[in-house]
Protein backbone atom coordinates (compact mmCIF):
# COMPACT_ATOMS: atom_id res chain seq x y z
CA UNK A 1 0.00 0.00 0.00
CA UNK A 2 1.25 3.50 -0.90
CA UNK A 3 0.43 6.63 1.08
CA UNK A 4 1.14 10.28 0.38
CA UNK A 5 0.66 13.38 2.48
CA UNK A 6 1.99 16.50 4.12
CA UNK A 7 4.02 16.28 7.32
CA UNK A 8 3.19 17.55 10.80
CA UNK A 9 6.24 17.25 13.00
CA UNK A 10 6.40 16.85 16.77
CA UNK A 11 9.09 16.07 19.37
CA UNK A 12 9.84 13.25 21.81
CA UNK A 13 7.51 11.55 24.31
CA UNK A 14 4.18 12.61 22.81
CA UNK A 15 1.91 10.98 25.41
CA UNK A 16 -1.57 9.54 25.03
CA UNK A 17 -3.02 12.19 27.36
CA UNK A 18 -2.18 14.94 24.86
CA UNK A 19 -3.22 12.76 21.92
CA UNK A 20 -6.69 12.33 23.43
CA UNK A 21 -7.28 13.82 26.90
CA UNK A 22 -9.23 11.68 29.38
CA UNK A 23 -11.97 14.32 29.54
CA UNK A 24 -13.13 12.98 26.16
CA UNK A 25 -12.92 9.29 27.07
CA UNK A 26 -16.56 8.99 28.09
CA UNK A 27 -17.14 7.93 24.49
CA UNK A 28 -15.35 5.58 22.12
CA UNK A 29 -16.99 6.93 18.96
CA UNK A 30 -14.02 7.44 16.59
CA UNK A 31 -15.62 10.49 14.90
CA UNK A 32 -16.10 12.17 18.29
CA UNK A 33 -12.55 11.29 19.42
CA UNK A 34 -11.14 12.60 16.12
CA UNK A 35 -12.46 16.10 16.89
CA UNK A 36 -10.06 16.32 19.85
CA UNK A 37 -7.05 14.57 18.31
CA UNK A 38 -3.77 16.04 19.67
CA UNK A 39 -5.78 18.84 21.30
CA UNK A 40 -3.49 19.42 24.30
CA UNK A 41 -0.32 19.29 22.16
CA UNK A 42 -1.41 21.38 19.17
CA UNK A 43 -4.89 22.84 19.60
CA UNK A 44 -5.16 23.72 15.88
CA UNK A 45 -4.17 20.28 14.58
CA UNK A 46 -7.61 19.08 13.48
CA UNK A 47 -8.31 22.37 11.65
CA UNK A 48 -5.03 22.62 9.77
CA UNK A 49 -4.44 18.99 8.80
CA UNK A 50 -5.78 17.38 5.62
CA UNK A 51 -6.85 13.75 5.28
CA UNK A 52 -3.86 11.61 4.35
CA UNK A 53 -1.35 13.79 6.21
CA UNK A 54 1.48 12.08 8.09
CA UNK A 55 2.74 12.66 11.63
CA UNK A 56 6.53 12.56 12.11
CA UNK A 57 7.79 12.51 15.70
CA UNK A 58 10.82 11.69 17.84
CA UNK A 59 11.32 9.03 20.50
CA UNK A 60 8.69 7.12 22.48
CA UNK A 61 5.59 8.31 20.60
CA UNK A 62 2.35 7.36 22.39
CA UNK A 63 3.81 6.85 25.86
CA UNK A 64 1.56 6.64 28.90
CA UNK A 65 -1.89 5.16 29.06
CA UNK A 66 -3.10 2.03 27.24
CA UNK A 67 -6.10 3.89 25.80
CA UNK A 68 -6.69 2.58 22.30
CA UNK A 69 -8.70 5.76 21.85
CA UNK A 70 -5.35 7.45 21.05
CA UNK A 71 -4.54 5.59 17.80
CA UNK A 72 -8.29 5.49 17.07
CA UNK A 73 -8.50 9.31 17.29
CA UNK A 74 -5.46 9.72 15.04
CA UNK A 75 -6.79 7.25 12.49
CA UNK A 76 -10.28 8.74 12.49
CA UNK A 77 -8.86 12.25 12.11
CA UNK A 78 -7.54 11.09 8.74
CA UNK A 79 -3.83 10.73 9.52
CA UNK A 80 -2.55 8.06 7.13
CA UNK A 81 0.66 7.07 8.92
CA UNK A 82 2.97 7.90 11.82
CA UNK A 83 6.74 7.84 11.46
CA UNK A 84 8.82 8.08 14.65
CA UNK A 85 12.21 7.13 16.04
CA UNK A 86 10.40 4.78 18.41
CA UNK A 87 6.92 4.09 19.76
CA UNK A 88 5.83 3.29 23.31
CA UNK A 89 5.07 -0.42 23.39
CA UNK A 90 1.32 -0.35 24.08
CA UNK A 91 0.74 2.33 21.43
CA UNK A 92 2.81 0.22 19.00
CA UNK A 93 0.64 -2.87 19.64
CA UNK A 94 -2.57 -0.88 19.51
CA UNK A 95 -1.70 0.74 16.18
CA UNK A 96 -0.90 -2.58 14.54
CA UNK A 97 -4.00 -4.15 16.08
CA UNK A 98 -6.34 -1.47 14.72
CA UNK A 99 -4.59 -1.11 11.36
CA UNK A 100 -3.01 2.33 11.79
CA UNK A 101 0.25 2.29 9.81
CA UNK A 102 3.36 3.14 11.86
CA UNK A 103 7.01 3.12 10.85
CA UNK A 104 10.27 3.54 12.77
CA UNK A 105 13.10 5.39 11.03
CA UNK A 106 15.66 7.70 12.62
CA UNK A 107 16.88 8.79 9.17
CA UNK A 108 13.42 9.89 8.15
CA UNK A 109 12.75 11.71 11.43
CA UNK A 110 16.03 13.62 11.37
CA UNK A 111 15.71 14.65 7.71
CA UNK A 112 12.00 15.39 7.25
CA UNK A 113 10.77 18.92 8.06
CA UNK A 114 7.26 20.06 8.86
CA UNK A 115 5.37 20.80 5.67
CA UNK A 116 7.39 18.38 3.51
CA UNK A 117 5.41 16.22 1.12
CA UNK A 118 6.30 12.57 1.56
CA UNK A 119 5.17 9.23 0.22
CA UNK A 120 5.34 5.91 2.04
CA UNK A 121 5.45 2.43 0.53
CA UNK A 122 4.27 0.32 3.46
CA UNK A 123 5.16 -3.03 1.89
CA UNK A 124 8.78 -1.98 1.29
CA UNK A 125 9.07 0.29 4.35
CA UNK A 126 10.34 2.94 1.94
CA UNK A 127 9.78 6.62 2.71
CA UNK A 128 10.29 9.18 -0.09
CA UNK A 129 10.62 12.87 0.65
CA UNK A 130 9.08 14.48 -2.43
CA UNK A 131 9.99 18.00 -1.24
CA UNK A 132 13.67 17.19 -0.66
CA UNK A 133 14.09 14.35 -3.16
CA UNK A 134 15.44 11.96 -0.51
CA UNK A 135 14.69 8.37 0.46
CA UNK A 136 14.77 6.68 3.85
CA UNK A 137 14.33 3.04 4.84
CA UNK A 138 12.14 2.15 7.84
CA UNK A 139 12.97 -0.75 10.17
CA UNK A 140 11.25 -3.91 8.89
CA UNK A 141 8.48 -5.50 10.99
CA UNK A 142 8.93 -9.04 12.32
CA UNK A 143 7.16 -11.63 10.17
CA UNK A 144 4.24 -12.21 12.54
CA UNK A 145 3.45 -8.50 12.66
CA UNK A 146 3.58 -8.32 8.88
CA UNK A 147 0.87 -11.00 8.84
CA UNK A 148 -1.24 -8.96 11.26
CA UNK A 149 -0.75 -5.83 9.19
CA UNK A 150 -1.59 -7.69 5.98
CA UNK A 151 -4.80 -8.99 7.57
CA UNK A 152 -5.81 -5.43 8.51
CA UNK A 153 -5.34 -5.82 12.24
CA UNK A 154 -5.74 -8.37 15.02
CA UNK A 155 -9.53 -8.78 14.86
CA UNK A 156 -9.53 -9.46 11.11
CA UNK A 157 -6.61 -11.86 11.62
CA UNK A 158 -8.62 -13.75 14.26
CA UNK A 159 -11.78 -13.70 12.12
CA UNK A 160 -9.80 -15.44 9.38
CA UNK A 161 -8.65 -18.06 11.90
CA UNK A 162 -12.18 -18.56 13.31
CA UNK A 163 -13.61 -18.93 9.80
CA UNK A 164 -10.88 -21.39 8.80
CA UNK A 165 -11.53 -23.56 11.86
CA UNK A 166 -15.07 -23.38 11.23
Amino acid at each position, binding site marked *: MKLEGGVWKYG*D*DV*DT*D*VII*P*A*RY*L*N*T*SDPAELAKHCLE*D*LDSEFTEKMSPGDIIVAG*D*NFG*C*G*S*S*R*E*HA*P*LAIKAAGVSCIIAN*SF*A*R*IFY*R*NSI*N*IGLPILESEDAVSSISEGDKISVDLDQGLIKNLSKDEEYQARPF*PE*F*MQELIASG*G*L*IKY*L*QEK*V*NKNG
Partner: protein
Amino acid sequence: MGMTMVEKILAAHAGRESLEPGEIVNAKLDLVLGNDITTPVAIEEFEKIGVEKVFDKDKIALVPDHFTPNKDINSAGQTKSIREFAAEMEITNYFEIGEMGIEHCLLPEQGLVKPGQIIIGADSHTCTYGAFGALGTGVGSTDMAAGMATGEAWFKVPETMKFVFSGELQPWVSGKDLILHTIGDIGVDGALYRAMEFSGEVIDKLSMADRMTISNMAIEAGGKCGLIAPDEKTFKYLEGRVDDDYQVYKSDEDANCYDVIEYDVSKLEPQVAFPHSPENTRPISQVGQVPIDQVVIGSCTNGRLKDIREAAEVLKGKKKAPHVRLLIFPGTQEIYKQAMHEGLVEILIDAGAAVSTPTCGPCLGGHMGVLAAGEKAISTTNRNFVGRMGHPDSEVYLSNPAVAAASAITGKIVSPEEVV
Protein backbone atom coordinates in the same frame (compact mmCIF):
# COMPACT_ATOMS: atom_id res chain seq x y z
CA MET B 1 23.19 -20.00 29.54
CA GLY B 2 20.56 -19.28 32.19
CA MET B 3 17.25 -17.56 31.70
CA THR B 4 15.70 -14.41 33.12
CA MET B 5 12.46 -14.41 35.07
CA VAL B 6 10.42 -12.99 32.19
CA GLU B 7 11.88 -15.54 29.77
CA LYS B 8 10.96 -18.38 32.12
CA ILE B 9 7.39 -17.15 32.59
CA LEU B 10 6.87 -16.67 28.85
CA ALA B 11 8.45 -20.06 28.02
CA ALA B 12 6.20 -21.85 30.53
CA HIS B 13 3.09 -20.26 28.99
CA ALA B 14 4.19 -20.83 25.40
CA GLY B 15 5.02 -24.52 25.87
CA ARG B 16 8.70 -23.92 25.27
CA GLU B 17 11.87 -25.08 27.02
CA SER B 18 13.74 -21.89 26.27
CA LEU B 19 13.43 -18.75 24.20
CA GLU B 20 15.44 -15.71 23.15
CA PRO B 21 14.79 -11.97 23.44
CA GLY B 22 13.28 -10.65 20.21
CA GLU B 23 11.32 -13.81 19.44
CA ILE B 24 7.56 -13.50 19.13
CA VAL B 25 5.60 -16.18 20.98
CA ASN B 26 1.97 -16.97 21.55
CA ALA B 27 1.36 -17.44 25.27
CA LYS B 28 -1.56 -18.66 27.37
CA LEU B 29 -3.14 -16.07 29.68
CA ASP B 30 -4.05 -16.54 33.35
CA LEU B 31 -6.12 -13.37 33.61
CA VAL B 32 -7.50 -10.69 31.29
CA LEU B 33 -8.40 -7.34 32.90
CA GLY B 34 -10.34 -4.31 31.73
CA ASN B 35 -11.70 -1.06 33.19
CA ASP B 36 -14.63 1.19 32.33
CA ILE B 37 -12.72 3.19 29.69
CA THR B 38 -11.08 0.30 27.84
CA THR B 39 -13.66 -2.49 28.21
CA PRO B 40 -16.48 -0.92 26.12
CA VAL B 41 -14.14 -0.81 23.10
CA ALA B 42 -13.00 -4.37 23.87
CA ILE B 43 -16.61 -5.60 23.95
CA GLU B 44 -17.26 -4.08 20.49
CA GLU B 45 -14.13 -5.77 19.11
CA PHE B 46 -14.91 -9.07 20.91
CA GLU B 47 -18.29 -9.20 19.19
CA LYS B 48 -16.64 -8.90 15.77
CA ILE B 49 -14.41 -11.96 16.26
CA GLY B 50 -17.22 -14.47 15.89
CA VAL B 51 -16.98 -16.52 19.09
CA GLU B 52 -20.01 -17.02 21.33
CA LYS B 53 -18.37 -17.06 24.76
CA VAL B 54 -15.27 -15.83 26.55
CA PHE B 55 -12.46 -18.40 26.85
CA ASP B 56 -12.92 -18.79 30.63
CA LYS B 57 -15.45 -16.85 32.69
CA ASP B 58 -13.24 -17.17 35.80
CA LYS B 59 -10.16 -15.69 34.14
CA ILE B 60 -11.54 -12.28 33.23
CA ALA B 61 -11.71 -9.35 35.63
CA LEU B 62 -13.84 -6.30 34.85
CA VAL B 63 -13.37 -3.35 37.18
CA PRO B 64 -15.25 -0.12 36.46
CA ASP B 65 -13.01 2.26 38.42
CA HIS B 66 -11.98 5.24 36.29
CA PHE B 67 -15.14 7.35 35.93
CA THR B 68 -17.12 5.59 38.66
CA PRO B 69 -19.37 6.20 40.49
CA ASN B 70 -20.59 7.28 37.04
CA LYS B 71 -19.53 10.88 36.48
CA ASP B 72 -21.93 11.67 33.64
CA ILE B 73 -24.51 10.14 31.32
CA ASN B 74 -21.98 8.87 28.78
CA SER B 75 -19.90 7.19 31.49
CA ALA B 76 -23.05 5.61 32.89
CA GLY B 77 -23.66 4.16 29.43
CA GLN B 78 -20.14 2.78 29.32
CA THR B 79 -20.41 1.01 32.69
CA LYS B 80 -23.89 -0.25 31.74
CA SER B 81 -22.43 -1.97 28.68
CA ILE B 82 -19.82 -3.68 30.88
CA ARG B 83 -22.39 -4.76 33.47
CA GLU B 84 -24.56 -6.30 30.74
CA PHE B 85 -21.61 -8.02 29.07
CA ALA B 86 -20.45 -9.44 32.43
CA ALA B 87 -23.94 -10.82 33.09
CA GLU B 88 -24.29 -12.28 29.58
CA MET B 89 -20.87 -13.97 29.76
CA GLU B 90 -21.38 -14.97 33.43
CA ILE B 91 -18.06 -13.37 34.31
CA THR B 92 -17.17 -14.23 37.90
CA ASN B 93 -14.86 -11.32 38.62
CA TYR B 94 -17.01 -8.31 37.85
CA PHE B 95 -16.74 -5.74 40.63
CA GLU B 96 -19.68 -3.42 41.23
CA ILE B 97 -19.60 -0.14 43.16
CA GLY B 98 -19.57 -1.00 46.85
CA GLU B 99 -17.45 -4.10 46.28
CA MET B 100 -14.88 -2.62 43.99
CA GLY B 101 -11.63 -0.78 44.19
CA ILE B 102 -8.97 0.69 41.97
CA GLU B 103 -8.13 -2.31 39.81
CA HIS B 104 -4.45 -2.73 40.73
CA CYS B 105 -5.18 -2.37 44.44
CA LEU B 106 -8.17 -4.69 44.17
CA LEU B 107 -6.93 -7.69 42.18
CA PRO B 108 -4.04 -8.67 44.49
CA GLU B 109 -6.32 -8.17 47.52
CA GLN B 110 -8.91 -10.48 45.92
CA GLY B 111 -6.33 -13.21 45.38
CA LEU B 112 -6.49 -12.91 41.60
CA VAL B 113 -2.76 -12.34 41.22
CA LYS B 114 -0.24 -15.16 41.71
CA PRO B 115 3.49 -15.51 41.08
CA GLY B 116 4.42 -16.89 37.67
CA GLN B 117 1.18 -15.85 35.98
CA ILE B 118 0.71 -13.92 32.79
CA ILE B 119 -1.89 -11.17 33.18
CA ILE B 120 -2.79 -8.75 30.43
CA GLY B 121 -4.83 -5.70 31.31
CA ALA B 122 -6.31 -3.00 29.16
CA ASP B 123 -4.73 -0.55 31.54
CA SER B 124 -1.11 0.48 31.37
CA HIS B 125 -0.50 0.00 35.10
CA THR B 126 -1.14 -3.75 34.89
CA CYS B 127 2.63 -3.99 35.39
CA THR B 128 1.83 -3.59 39.14
CA TYR B 129 1.56 -7.41 39.36
CA GLY B 130 5.28 -7.70 38.76
CA ALA B 131 5.55 -7.11 42.53
CA PHE B 132 4.31 -10.71 42.91
CA GLY B 133 6.65 -12.13 40.29
CA ALA B 134 3.82 -12.21 37.75
CA LEU B 135 4.17 -10.98 34.19
CA GLY B 136 1.51 -8.26 34.26
CA THR B 137 1.53 -6.01 31.24
CA GLY B 138 -0.68 -3.33 29.77
CA VAL B 139 -2.35 -3.75 26.41
CA GLY B 140 -5.12 -2.00 24.50
CA SER B 141 -8.77 -2.88 24.06
CA THR B 142 -8.26 -5.00 20.93
CA ASP B 143 -5.69 -7.20 22.67
CA MET B 144 -8.09 -7.47 25.59
CA ALA B 145 -10.86 -8.57 23.21
CA ALA B 146 -8.59 -11.16 21.59
CA GLY B 147 -7.48 -12.34 25.02
CA MET B 148 -11.09 -12.75 26.20
CA ALA B 149 -11.90 -14.75 23.05
CA THR B 150 -8.84 -16.98 22.82
CA GLY B 151 -7.12 -16.96 26.22
CA GLU B 152 -3.89 -16.17 24.42
CA ALA B 153 -1.80 -13.20 23.36
CA TRP B 154 1.34 -12.62 21.32
CA PHE B 155 4.42 -11.32 23.07
CA LYS B 156 7.81 -10.22 21.89
CA VAL B 157 10.26 -11.67 24.41
CA PRO B 158 11.85 -8.63 26.06
CA GLU B 159 15.41 -8.11 27.14
CA THR B 160 15.82 -7.58 30.88
CA MET B 161 17.22 -4.55 32.71
CA LYS B 162 18.12 -5.23 36.33
CA PHE B 163 17.96 -2.55 39.01
CA VAL B 164 19.73 -3.41 42.25
CA PHE B 165 19.16 -1.20 45.30
CA SER B 166 21.55 -1.22 48.24
CA GLY B 167 21.88 0.81 51.44
CA GLU B 168 19.55 1.91 54.23
CA LEU B 169 16.56 4.14 53.46
CA GLN B 170 16.23 7.53 55.16
CA PRO B 171 13.03 8.37 57.07
CA TRP B 172 10.06 9.32 54.82
CA VAL B 173 11.67 7.64 51.82
CA SER B 174 9.58 4.83 50.33
CA GLY B 175 8.98 2.75 47.21
CA LYS B 176 7.67 5.79 45.34
CA ASP B 177 10.98 7.58 45.78
CA LEU B 178 12.97 4.58 44.52
CA ILE B 179 10.94 4.36 41.33
CA LEU B 180 10.84 8.14 40.75
CA HIS B 181 14.62 8.22 41.22
CA THR B 182 15.00 5.36 38.74
CA ILE B 183 12.78 7.03 36.12
CA GLY B 184 14.61 10.32 36.70
CA ASP B 185 17.85 8.51 36.00
CA ILE B 186 16.96 6.43 32.93
CA GLY B 187 14.17 8.60 31.48
CA VAL B 188 10.62 7.88 30.34
CA ASP B 189 11.86 5.60 27.57
CA GLY B 190 14.86 4.25 29.47
CA ALA B 191 13.40 0.74 29.61
CA LEU B 192 11.36 0.86 26.39
CA TYR B 193 10.19 -2.62 25.28
CA ARG B 194 12.25 -4.20 28.10
CA ALA B 195 11.46 -6.07 31.30
CA MET B 196 12.57 -4.24 34.44
CA GLU B 197 13.63 -6.40 37.36
CA PHE B 198 14.08 -4.88 40.82
CA SER B 199 16.20 -6.51 43.52
CA GLY B 200 18.72 -5.91 46.30
CA GLU B 201 18.67 -5.60 50.07
CA VAL B 202 16.44 -2.51 49.94
CA ILE B 203 13.75 -4.29 47.91
CA ASP B 204 14.00 -7.33 50.23
CA LYS B 205 13.08 -5.12 53.20
CA LEU B 206 10.21 -3.29 51.50
CA SER B 207 6.54 -4.00 52.20
CA MET B 208 4.36 -5.48 49.46
CA ALA B 209 2.65 -2.07 49.21
CA ASP B 210 5.96 -0.37 48.40
CA ARG B 211 6.89 -3.11 45.97
CA MET B 212 3.58 -2.65 44.16
CA THR B 213 4.26 1.10 43.93
CA ILE B 214 7.60 0.38 42.27
CA SER B 215 6.30 -2.22 39.80
CA ASN B 216 3.29 0.01 39.07
CA MET B 217 5.46 2.74 37.56
CA ALA B 218 7.64 0.49 35.35
CA ILE B 219 5.47 1.68 32.44
CA GLU B 220 6.56 5.25 33.20
CA ALA B 221 10.05 4.22 32.05
CA GLY B 222 8.58 2.45 29.02
CA GLY B 223 8.96 -1.01 30.59
CA LYS B 224 6.92 -4.02 29.55
CA CYS B 225 6.82 -5.25 33.14
CA GLY B 226 8.41 -4.52 36.50
CA LEU B 227 9.30 -7.80 38.15
CA ILE B 228 10.33 -8.55 41.73
CA ALA B 229 11.21 -12.13 42.67
CA PRO B 230 8.72 -13.59 45.18
CA ASP B 231 10.01 -14.14 48.74
CA GLU B 232 8.63 -14.81 52.23
CA LYS B 233 6.84 -11.43 52.26
CA THR B 234 5.11 -12.29 49.01
CA PHE B 235 4.05 -15.69 50.30
CA LYS B 236 2.76 -14.15 53.52
CA TYR B 237 0.62 -11.65 51.55
CA LEU B 238 -0.75 -14.49 49.43
CA GLU B 239 -1.61 -16.71 52.42
CA GLY B 240 -5.34 -17.12 52.71
CA ARG B 241 -5.91 -15.24 49.45
CA VAL B 242 -4.81 -17.86 46.90
CA ASP B 243 -4.33 -21.61 46.62
CA ASP B 244 -0.68 -22.60 46.61
CA ASP B 245 -0.82 -23.99 43.09
CA TYR B 246 1.52 -21.38 41.65
CA GLN B 247 5.00 -21.46 40.19
CA VAL B 248 7.81 -19.23 41.41
CA TYR B 249 10.31 -18.16 38.78
CA LYS B 250 13.58 -16.35 39.45
CA SER B 251 16.29 -15.19 37.10
CA ASP B 252 19.33 -17.44 36.89
CA GLU B 253 22.64 -15.96 38.03
CA ASP B 254 24.14 -16.44 34.56
CA ALA B 255 21.11 -15.13 32.63
CA ASN B 256 21.86 -12.61 29.93
CA CYS B 257 20.71 -9.08 30.80
CA TYR B 258 20.68 -5.94 28.68
CA ASP B 259 21.98 -3.96 31.63
CA VAL B 260 22.47 -4.07 35.41
CA ILE B 261 22.08 -0.71 37.15
CA GLU B 262 23.06 -0.42 40.82
CA TYR B 263 21.90 2.34 43.14
CA ASP B 264 23.17 3.00 46.66
CA VAL B 265 20.12 4.79 48.07
CA SER B 266 21.41 5.50 51.60
CA LYS B 267 21.41 9.25 50.92
CA LEU B 268 18.30 9.32 48.74
CA GLU B 269 15.82 12.04 49.74
CA PRO B 270 12.09 11.98 49.00
CA GLN B 271 11.68 12.72 45.29
CA VAL B 272 9.30 15.10 43.51
CA ALA B 273 8.63 14.82 39.76
CA PHE B 274 8.01 18.28 38.28
CA PRO B 275 5.63 18.97 35.38
CA HIS B 276 5.19 17.62 32.79
CA SER B 277 7.04 14.34 32.94
CA PRO B 278 7.71 11.66 35.58
CA GLU B 279 11.41 11.89 34.65
CA ASN B 280 11.70 15.52 35.84
CA THR B 281 12.62 14.45 39.35
CA ARG B 282 14.30 16.53 42.05
CA PRO B 283 15.19 15.69 45.64
CA ILE B 284 12.85 17.43 48.08
CA SER B 285 15.68 19.73 49.28
CA GLN B 286 15.89 21.22 45.78
CA VAL B 287 12.20 21.81 45.13
CA GLY B 288 12.20 25.50 46.08
CA GLN B 289 8.95 27.41 46.61
CA VAL B 290 6.05 25.65 44.93
CA PRO B 291 2.64 26.74 46.25
CA ILE B 292 -0.14 24.23 45.67
CA ASP B 293 -3.94 24.32 45.37
CA GLN B 294 -4.74 20.63 45.69
CA VAL B 295 -3.32 17.46 47.21
CA VAL B 296 -4.32 14.01 45.94
CA ILE B 297 -3.42 10.91 47.95
CA GLY B 298 -4.50 7.61 46.44
CA SER B 299 -4.48 5.83 43.04
CA CYS B 300 -3.19 2.44 41.88
CA THR B 301 0.27 3.76 42.69
CA ASN B 302 -0.24 4.89 46.31
CA GLY B 303 -3.77 4.06 47.47
CA ARG B 304 -2.93 1.15 49.77
CA LEU B 305 -3.34 0.99 53.54
CA LYS B 306 0.34 1.73 54.15
CA ASP B 307 -0.01 4.91 52.10
CA ILE B 308 -3.12 6.04 54.02
CA ARG B 309 -1.33 5.28 57.30
CA GLU B 310 1.65 7.38 56.24
CA ALA B 311 -0.60 10.31 55.30
CA ALA B 312 -2.43 10.04 58.62
CA GLU B 313 0.84 9.90 60.56
CA VAL B 314 1.86 13.23 59.04
CA LEU B 315 -1.58 14.85 59.34
CA LYS B 316 -2.46 13.65 62.85
CA GLY B 317 -3.55 16.58 65.03
CA LYS B 318 -2.83 19.07 62.25
CA LYS B 319 -4.89 21.06 59.74
CA LYS B 320 -4.43 21.48 56.04
CA ALA B 321 -3.75 25.01 54.82
CA PRO B 322 -7.08 26.83 54.40
CA HIS B 323 -6.88 27.31 50.62
CA VAL B 324 -5.80 23.71 49.87
CA ARG B 325 -8.19 20.94 48.79
CA LEU B 326 -6.97 17.68 50.34
CA LEU B 327 -8.47 14.65 48.58
CA ILE B 328 -7.87 11.10 49.77
CA PHE B 329 -8.83 7.97 47.84
CA PRO B 330 -8.45 4.63 49.63
CA GLY B 331 -7.72 2.05 46.92
CA THR B 332 -10.45 -0.45 47.80
CA GLN B 333 -13.49 -0.86 50.03
CA GLU B 334 -11.39 -3.16 52.23
CA ILE B 335 -8.64 -0.54 52.59
CA TYR B 336 -11.31 2.10 53.36
CA LYS B 337 -12.85 -0.12 56.03
CA GLN B 338 -9.49 -0.91 57.61
CA ALA B 339 -8.57 2.80 57.58
CA MET B 340 -11.82 3.49 59.45
CA HIS B 341 -11.14 0.68 61.88
CA GLU B 342 -7.69 2.10 62.66
CA GLY B 343 -9.10 5.61 63.17
CA LEU B 344 -7.23 6.96 60.14
CA VAL B 345 -10.32 8.32 58.41
CA GLU B 346 -11.17 10.40 61.48
CA ILE B 347 -7.61 11.79 61.64
CA LEU B 348 -7.79 12.71 57.97
CA ILE B 349 -11.24 14.31 58.20
CA ASP B 350 -10.16 16.27 61.28
CA ALA B 351 -7.22 17.53 59.22
CA GLY B 352 -9.67 18.85 56.65
CA ALA B 353 -9.47 16.05 54.08
CA ALA B 354 -12.28 14.85 51.84
CA VAL B 355 -12.14 11.05 51.94
CA SER B 356 -13.69 9.50 48.84
CA THR B 357 -15.02 6.14 47.79
CA PRO B 358 -12.37 4.32 45.69
CA THR B 359 -11.98 5.74 42.17
CA CYS B 360 -9.16 6.66 39.78
CA GLY B 361 -10.99 10.01 39.59
CA PRO B 362 -8.58 12.93 39.43
CA CYS B 363 -5.46 10.90 38.57
CA LEU B 364 -6.44 11.10 34.90
CA GLY B 365 -8.50 14.27 35.16
CA GLY B 366 -11.70 12.27 35.12
CA HIS B 367 -13.69 13.66 38.02
CA MET B 368 -13.55 14.20 41.80
CA GLY B 369 -10.81 16.83 41.73
CA VAL B 370 -10.19 18.25 38.25
CA LEU B 371 -7.83 21.26 38.12
CA ALA B 372 -8.61 24.70 36.68
CA ALA B 373 -6.22 26.66 34.46
CA GLY B 374 -3.18 27.81 36.42
CA GLU B 375 -3.76 25.48 39.39
CA LYS B 376 -1.09 23.24 40.86
CA ALA B 377 -1.48 19.89 42.60
CA ILE B 378 0.87 17.58 44.39
CA SER B 379 -0.26 14.02 43.89
CA THR B 380 0.77 10.48 44.79
CA THR B 381 -0.38 9.32 41.35
CA ASN B 382 1.81 8.22 38.45
CA ARG B 383 1.68 10.77 35.64
CA ASN B 384 2.06 14.53 35.39
CA PHE B 385 1.66 15.01 31.63
CA VAL B 386 0.13 18.20 30.23
CA GLY B 387 -3.57 18.25 31.15
CA ARG B 388 -3.37 15.00 33.07
CA MET B 389 -5.47 16.23 36.02
CA GLY B 390 -7.56 18.77 34.19
CA HIS B 391 -6.91 21.98 32.29
CA PRO B 392 -3.90 21.86 29.94
CA ASP B 393 -2.54 24.90 31.82
CA SER B 394 -2.61 23.15 35.21
CA GLU B 395 0.39 21.43 36.79
CA VAL B 396 0.90 18.14 38.64
CA TYR B 397 3.86 17.31 40.91
CA LEU B 398 4.34 13.64 41.83
CA SER B 399 5.51 12.47 45.25
CA ASN B 400 5.08 9.88 47.97
CA PRO B 401 2.11 10.11 50.41
CA ALA B 402 4.11 11.63 53.29
CA VAL B 403 5.39 14.52 51.16
CA ALA B 404 1.90 15.09 49.75
CA ALA B 405 0.37 15.13 53.25
CA ALA B 406 3.04 17.51 54.59
CA SER B 407 2.49 19.82 51.63
CA ALA B 408 -1.24 19.95 52.40
CA ILE B 409 -0.41 21.42 55.82
CA THR B 410 1.94 24.13 54.58
CA GLY B 411 0.22 24.86 51.24
CA LYS B 412 3.52 24.43 49.41
CA ILE B 413 5.68 21.43 48.62
CA VAL B 414 7.75 20.49 51.69
CA SER B 415 9.45 17.56 53.34
CA PRO B 416 7.52 15.75 56.10
CA GLU B 417 10.43 16.66 58.37
CA GLU B 418 9.24 20.26 58.34
CA VAL B 419 5.85 19.46 59.88
CA VAL B 420 6.26 16.33 62.00
